[in-house]
């Protein structure tokens, strides 16, 4: 069985051959993209819970419990990194034909972006606060070395995650064009042509 994808268009004025898309491949890509993101959200929710716990353990000076929290957070960060690789475990062609169009008009509003992920925004903010507090305690010499070592392992996991995000983006969008940036570029072009447009600024994160 085969099906047409949203991206299969003949050049203007030409009938053009239908591109045959492997339905199983398409189904697999959609499943992995969305199920992978759902797992990512489970990880993020667990991370947000553990970040609150870690903050409480830090405030109370419960160092073994804080170390355990930091190590669990590290495992979840690495899991989130691998989960993004799972979510994107399909071909660039399938991304261009199926996944990317599914996140753009007419299916969704313009400007769809990973910055709309609420749990991720919450996690990053809590992470920043925890890191600042841990650093202050280290400078003051109040936290034991085991806490500092667990913290260092966690920051390394965060660094691996950021590098992986760059690789996933480069795999699917080699020129780094996000849907949000596409939207604002189109608005700028409209302005140049004298049409009303949205303000021109863009955030970098794409899903």
């Amino acid at each position, binding site marked *: 069985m085969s099906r047409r994808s949203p991206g299969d268009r003949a050049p203007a004025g030409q009938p053009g051959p239908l591109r045959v898309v492997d339905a199983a491949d398409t189904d*697999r890509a959609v*499943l*992995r993209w*969305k*199920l*992978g*993101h*759902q*797992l990512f*959200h*489970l*990880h993020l929710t*667990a991370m947000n*819970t*553990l970040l609150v716990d870690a903050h409480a353990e830090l405030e109370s000076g419960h160092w073994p419990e804080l170390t355990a929290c930091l190590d*669990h957070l590290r*495992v*979840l960060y*690495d*899991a*989130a*990194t*691998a*989960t993004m*690789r*799972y979510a994107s*475990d399909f071909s660039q062609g399938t991304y261009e034909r199926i996944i990317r169009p*599914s*996140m753009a008009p007419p299916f*969704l*509003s*313009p*400007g*769809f*972006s990973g*910055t*709309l*992920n*609420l749990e991720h*925004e919450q996690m990053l903010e809590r992470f920043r606060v925890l890191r600042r507090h841990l650093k202050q305690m280290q400078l003051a010499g109040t936290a034991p070395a085991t806490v500092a070592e667990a913290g260092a392992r966690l920051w390394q996991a965060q660094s691996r995650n950021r590098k992986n995000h760059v690789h996933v983006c480069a795999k699917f969008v080699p020129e780094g064009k996000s849907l*949000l940036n596409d*939207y*604002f570029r189109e608005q700028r072009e409209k302005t140049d042509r004298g049409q009303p447009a*949205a*303000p021109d*600024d*863009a*955030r970098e994160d794409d*899903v």
Partner: protein
Amino acid sequence: MTGDQSAADAVAPDYGLIAPITLPADGRIPDEATGVSSPAEYDGYFRLRRDRPDLQAWSRSCLDVQRGILADLALTDLSAEDRCDILAGCLVVLHTTLEHWVGVSGTRSREAA
């Protein structure tokens, strides 16, 4: 009018002195991207439902998603390290959830005693 708006309008008594105001669902002042796409659209796309789930509903979501991942993981091109990282993450999610179950169960036992 949505259910939320109706509830906001129905709050009494303020004797008609106060009108409802609109606040962003994400708790931040809208920027240039807000009002174009939205967190609600993001949630809808990835089939995320936001309400106040109890521990049972949360646990069911964990089981459903992890069941799907486990069924597909062996068919991926992921490295053994990536698969191990995913499984370890699933374990921590379930471990943390079980700790909450034990906490809830302990509270109920103390209340029953």
